[in-house]
Structures are given as structure tokens and as C-alpha cells.
């Protein structure tokens, strides 16, 4: 192999976006290639959205985008123009929400890295669409946790969804 002739890396095209984040209007000009997760974390400094894989597999970066659970690591910031986003920082304006409290009471977290993703998935889905014990597992099956073995998380969701294990 020989040294390549100098290739120029083209500067990114920038895109203006208007987006509502945790209830506040945000106007920004973003590089076209900037990941949504990086926009939230590095530009808005909402670092509660964690990046675990940048491949859309682990679910740690899940946010609420117009009511849907979405992986912010495989979307571009430029795609969310006109949308409303909620991140974990916007889940509760005061204290912990009932879902967050259930995680705390049931030891539903250890290292906490995956936790915002679980919370955002759960706060976005409709429990009625995920009936029974299997429904709980199905609802969180797109979020990986390496610490808890899911025991505390499952108990937290049962509590938050008022769903006894034997039901």
C-alpha cells in the first residue's frame, strides 16, 4: 500500500431545525450528519440520554419522539425538525414520577446507564397493549440491561402498572 493522495473531507452541510425538547422550543442549526443523540447530549447538554452502542440495539438512548419510543443514536438531528421530544430529564418536573419511584423502590437499577432508556420506553408505551406478565417482558425486550438480570426492573413495572405477578 502507498500513501493516498490527499483526500479532502467535505465540510458538513448544516440544517436549521425547530424542535420542542422537554417542553421548551429549541432553534438550532445542526450539521447534517449529526446524530440526534449527539445533538441532545453535546449541544443541549441533556446527558441523561446515554449512548450504549450507536447501532440501535441496546436501547439506552431511547427518547420519546412525538409519542413514540425512538432510538436517538440511529436518527439524525436534522430529521426531528418540527417534532416534540421528551428525554429522561423531562419525565418529571418535581421529584420522581410514579414509574421512577417504582424503579427506586424495587431496586430496578444498578449502574443506571440503561435506566433512562427503560424509563423512556415504558413512559411511551400503552400498558394495555402489553397485557400480562409476558406483556411486561415484551415491552422492555428492546432494552438491554447487564446489571440487574431484569428482576428488579420487572418488579418495578409490575408495581407501576399495578399488575401482580400471578395475574
Amino acid at each position, binding site marked *: *500500500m*502507498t*500513501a*493516498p*493522495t*490527499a*483526500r479532502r*473531507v467535505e*465540510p*458538513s452541510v448544516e440544517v436549521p431545525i425547530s424542535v420542542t425538547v422537554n417542553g421548551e422550543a429549541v432553534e438550532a442549526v445542526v*450539521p447534517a*450528519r*449529526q446524530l440526534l443523540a449527539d445533538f441532545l*447530549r*453535546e449541544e443541549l447538554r*441533556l*446527558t*441523561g440520554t*446515554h*449512548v*450504549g*452502542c*450507536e*447501532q440501535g*440495539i*441496546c436501547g439506552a438512548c431511547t427518547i420519546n419522539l412525538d409519542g413514540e419510543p425512538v432510538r436517538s443514536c440511529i436518527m439524525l438531528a436534522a430529521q426531528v425538525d418540527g417534532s416534540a421530544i421528551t*428525554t*429522561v*430529564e423531562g419525565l*418529571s418536573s418535581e421529584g*420522581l414520577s410514579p414509574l*421512577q419511584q417504582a*424503579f*427506586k*423502590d424495587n*431496586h430496578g*437499577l*444498578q*449502574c*443506571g*446507564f*440503561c*435506566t*433512562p432508556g427503560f*424509563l423512556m420506553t415504558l413512559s411511551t408505551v400503552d400498558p394495555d397493549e402489553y397485557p400480562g406478565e409476558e406483556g*411486561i*417482558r*415484551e415491552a*422492555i*425486550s428492546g*432494552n*438491554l440491561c*447487564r*446489571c*440487574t*438480570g*431484569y*428482576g*428488579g426492573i*420487572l418488579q418495578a413495572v409490575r408495581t407501576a402498572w399495578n399488575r401482580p405477578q400471578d395475574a
Partner: protein
Amino acid sequence: MPDTFELGGRPVYTGAHVTRRQDDALLSGQGTYVADLRPSGMAEIAVVRSPIAHGRITAIHTAAAAAVDGVIEVITAADLTDVAPYPNFADAYTQTPGTFPLAQDKVRYAGSPVAVVLAEDRYIAEDAAELVEVDYTELPAVTSLEAALEPDSPRLFEDWPNNRLLDLQPDDSEVAAILAGNRVLRRRYKMGRHTAMPMETRAALAEVHGGRLHLWCTNQHAHIARTTLSYVLPLAERDIRVVIPYVGGGFGLKQHLYPEDVLVSWLALRHDRPVRFVEDRAEHMIAAAHARDHMIDIEAAIADDGRILAMRVQVVQDLGSAEIFPGAWCPALTTAAHMTGPYDIRDCVVSVAAVTTNKTPGGSYRGFGVPEAVFALERFIDEIADEVGADRLDLRRSMLLQPADLPYTTASGALLDSGSFAESFERVVELGEHAYQRADARYRSDPDSRIGVGYAVLFEGVSPTHHGASAHWMGHESCTIEVQPDGGVRVASGVTDQGQGTTTFVATLTADALGVPMETVRVELADSDATPYGLGAFGSRQAVIGGGAILLAAAEVRGKVKRIAAHMLEAPEDDLVIEAGRVHVAGSPVPAVTMAEIATTAVIRTIDLPPGMEPGLEATARYEPELMEHTPDEKGRINANAAYANAAHAAVIRVDLGTGEIEILNYILAHDCGRVINPPIVDGQIWGGIAQGLGGTLYEDLCFNDLGQPQTAFMDYLVPSAIEMPDLVIEHFESPSPNTPLGMKGVGEGGTVGPAAAIGNALAQALAEFSPQIHETPLSPAVVRAMILDQPA
């Protein structure tokens, strides 16, 4: 145990369901991990990694990358003229890889760091990294431990005589004589290549403040990291501060000081600006420590009833390229130390080899050699039972250590001072047989299902010496407790928290040992400037050894509190109790003095102290377990741990004959970690450990092809989700150790250890009609289906 290891009063928090300290922050997105730090002026790096497994570097072309707008510098090993290779303190018995942060001359695994681009942000750094061209002369790759053992195998390190970094061949003449006179059974077992896969990848951020290096990193030990940095960088330890903020899981993988930790430090010093590295998951798959990848050969002399009379074992661990610090040969030694299990097997000799291959360096991972030993031994016992026609449960009963056998020193030198080996086993058998019968009744008429139950019973060394890993650091832990004038408490310790709840544990023990409300205790961990020198997190040690240091420091402070209070209350010291931050005569809550009044006296109004007493109300203590040994005796025996936990596992499984899928119907575990401090945290450790153990048994495997190319992406490395995880039945036994503070043992790894053995044995029963050969993990559907078809997978 001296009474200084007691709590000093009636515990309020110890043993109770205490919620964790960090949870409010973590649940609202306020926990600050390394990747969340962004000091102004920060630059970022991208690492250029070798695409080949083995080759000689002939040229590195960096000019095109350096010319990209926003690139600050591109460096290679040749630039690191003032950096030393990692030391090898074990050079008396191991070969030295001479690990350097960037590849010098040769690359030995695909993923090896070759060059680093420093740029204004990660996007630019990655763009430029693609423009770095490296010329290699490829060399044949060694891609399996069998190949590495071949006499004519290509060598990774040309100045070594072979690929054996470690090769311990103890005298086996006594065991050989027993083997020669008895029926001998031989089996080979292998465990696949795993990795810890914490949800947070590795990260490091280096800054320079007043000429000092501040490294924020994901490492599991602040002080070992600081000392190691001083070995490789031209810096004095006093000029290095290591801080470990919130960490997203460690599991051993973050025990190593990685090349990127050194590189961001070197670049921050060189450019006098903050430099950050955040690993992406694709890098993590090839550049963060791998683990397991063991082969175990057992030869055993067996009696007519199947009892093991003597064992000769060879353990071989595949280290990958071994370019990691601290070194990674210790799991093989740990496997060797656990080969007899909790059975009365007096004659067992184990040889250990750790070999280098052209794969990602192996390192630490929860379980650390024990899952391998338990899988091999517990499968072997079931196979003996089949061979001699014995009942596998009765065969275990005939060898299991009974309460009257304790204390018992194993053939490897482990001192089992307490435990519930037989009792926990019987409880799990009772529950397991019941669950099996229910499952059998339910599926008996289903022609596509087969049901099996499998058992594993085990002990696990916890709170180990670090000597095996580093041949340098030993086993102590430290703690400083300071009562401040307002009565509040600051406790600083060398232990660290990767999410397992260490912070809460430290606050719990400190509050109970001082008799103060927990909310008045502030915990400082993992900042080398703020905490006394400690060894941090590894080997399920922090409760036992860290706890011992807390209790020692607290006892000293408590004694002084009582002496001052006795003076103030004009009451005999021995009559006093401390409760909820107030000191009074036992049985009469008034009059009392508060911790604030006592501390104000000790620190500010020292004129009111008892005559001759020194001012101040703080203590620093260090605890090194007395019975823990650091080097083996002439026969290779060593009591390498402060304590030994035990457990019994049972798995009831359904095998789908059509797909080969294993469904876990019931998973039952009886565990014994001695005195429990926080029940939910203990349960959480067990659940998480079982999930990792199941992952490695059924799904997880890091594969390489014949060229040494990694074949497993994150998508293929199947970390169990909530769908795969069974419900657990957990039975608690509590056999306090007479030799540890409060009788505590460690619980961090136990769950990981048993699943491979329990499920392997359940599968053997379920598929008995097919005479399956179950000697390896993972037991993926393809592997199981091949057993059913009696064809190679």
C-alpha cells in the same frame, strides 16, 4: 475476630432494605458518567486499529489525516518516546509481553491500536482516522489455544521460546500413582469466549490543572490506575489525580488500565487541553477485554461407586495477545484452585498453561475462572454417575463436605471455614425435583419436548489477593472517617462503585458503626486525591475487605466519641451507648450529648476535652485479612481468598426437539454469602450474575475465523433480554465466616458461576436418549440440534 470488627451497637440499617443513594440522580438523568463530561476546549481522539490479526508494521502514513481541518495531531508509537511499557511484576514465572499503548513494529490482534488522531471533535477524528494508511507484512495467525500449544506454532513474541506466557507443571507423582492403580475416567471441557459487555463502554477524559494530570476514567480502581500511570508516563504520582465518576457497569472488564487511558493523558499533557476518549461499541467488541476461553482436561481415579479418589487436571487459558495490564493469566489459576469443588477430594494436582493467540487480549470478567471449573467438575460428576450407573445426587452426597468437616482445607489450599454446602444442595434438590416433576407431567405427552433437571453445587473464593493478577498489589483496603464539627460524617474509602451499590454499603456500615443517622454520612469514593490508598473493585472483595476497614476506622472514632462524652456527661464510658447521633447512659436517654457537641469539642472547643486528649475526631484504618495468602507454598497451595461463598443451582429446562432451543422453566438457587448487609442489593447481584451466566451458557460467544478476524458483532453477541431471563427462586442461607468482619463473604460473582453446569447437566438428562456429548458452551440451538441429529454442529 477482634471486637473492633463489631458494629458497636444495635444496627439500624445493616440487614435492612435501605434504598440506594444514587438512585434519584440516576433515575432523572443526572448521574454524570465520563462521556457526559465536556470541559471547554476539549478535543477528542479516534484510534486507528489494526485490521489484521498478526503482522509486521512496515510504514504508517499519517500526512493525509494530519492535513484534515480540525485535526490537531496524529501520533504513532514512535512519538511516545517518553512512555514506558507496562511493567511485569510476575517475570519470575511468566513471559513478558512488553505491552505498549500503541503497536510497535508488530500487531498481534485485529483491533490493536496503531495510531491516534486528535481532533476538535470525534466526527473529525473519525474522518481523519480513515485516512491513516498502514502498511503491514502479514504473518500467519494463531487463532485457537490448541494451535498455540503446537510446538511449531507461529509465535506472537519472537523472543519467547513458545506461546506459553504461563506454564506451571507441578509434581504429579502422587496422583499419578493413584491413577495407575484405579479405574480412570478422562474428559475434556471447554468454555467459549465471553466478554463482560457493560452497557457503558470504556471512556477516559484527561485534563491538566496546575501542571497536574487529572484523569476521569471508567477504571475500577483509582489508586492502582494512578500508580500504573506513574509507571508508564514521566509523571510523579503526586502529580496525578484519578477520579472515577458514575460508571455504567464494570464486571472486571474495567479493571485494566487500557492504552486509551494512557494516550489521552499523554495528549492532554502535550497539548495542555482536555482530551476525551469514548469507545464505541464496535471498538468495544475487539478492543475491550475478552474472557473465559478455557480448556480443561480431567483425569480421575474413581472408586466402584463413582467417588473421585484423585484428579489430575490440566487447565489451558487462551489469553489472546496478552497485551493488557494487569495481566490476564490469573483466571486459569483461579480455575485450578476451584477444581475440587466443595467435595472431599484430597488428591488433586492441576497444571496450568496460559497461551497467547492472535485475538483480543483476555482479561477479567465476573466469575474469573470459577465458572469454567464448576462447569467441568459438575459435568464430570454427572458423567461419572452415568459411567458407573450411580445416582448423580447420591454420588455428590458421598463426596460433599458436611458441617462436621469444617473448617476444611482443599487440595489447592483454600480454607473453607464455614458454609452450607450439603444443606444448600439438599434444599435445591428438594425444590428442583418438585419443579421437574411438575414440568415432566405437563410436557410428557408432547412429542417435541424433552424435560431435564440439572444441578451444580459450588464454592467460590471471594475477596482475593490481587497478587495473582498483578504480582504486585496484595489485598488490603482503606478507610478514613472524619466527624466534622456539626456532627456530620465524611467517610472516604479506596473502594469504588460501578453500580453495584458500594456507596450505599459504605454509608450503611459507617452509620451503624458510629450510631449516627445515615443521612448525616457523606461518602467519598474513587478520587485518588480524596481517599486513602485502596485497591478498589475486583473479586467480590469490597464488602469484606472494604467493610473491615470501615469497621476498624469507626471503632477508633467511636472510642474517642465515648471518651469525650463520658467526660462531658460525667458518666462511666462503659455505660454509654450511641444512638441516632446522641450519646447517653444505656437505658436513660437524658441527659445526652449530641455528635455535634462532641465533635465541636474535639475540633473547635478543645479546651473542653478530657485532660491530655489530642484534638480531632477522625481515624484512618487499613484492613488486610490475616489468613489471606499471597504466594503459593512449595506444593503450589495457597489460601488466596479472605472468604469462600457457596451456592447450589438447579435448572429445569425444556428442549424443543425441532429447533434445539432450550427453554428454562425453573431456575432455583440457594446461596450463602455469610452476613447480608443489604438484602435487595444481594438479590440484585444474584439476578445479574445469573443473567450473565445464562448468557454465556446459551447465547454469548466471541468467534474468530482462521485468519483471526473477529466474527461477532454486537448484534450477534446475544446479551439476554427480559424475554430470555427466567424467574428465579432464591433461597438464602447465612453461614457467617468466623474469620471475616461481621462474618461477611462476597456476593458479586456467585450467580455467574453455576448456570453452565446446571444447564449442561439438565440438557444431558433431557436428551439422554441421544447420548449427547455436552462438553462445551455455548449450548446454542444449533449445537443442541446437532446433538439431537447426532451430527457435528
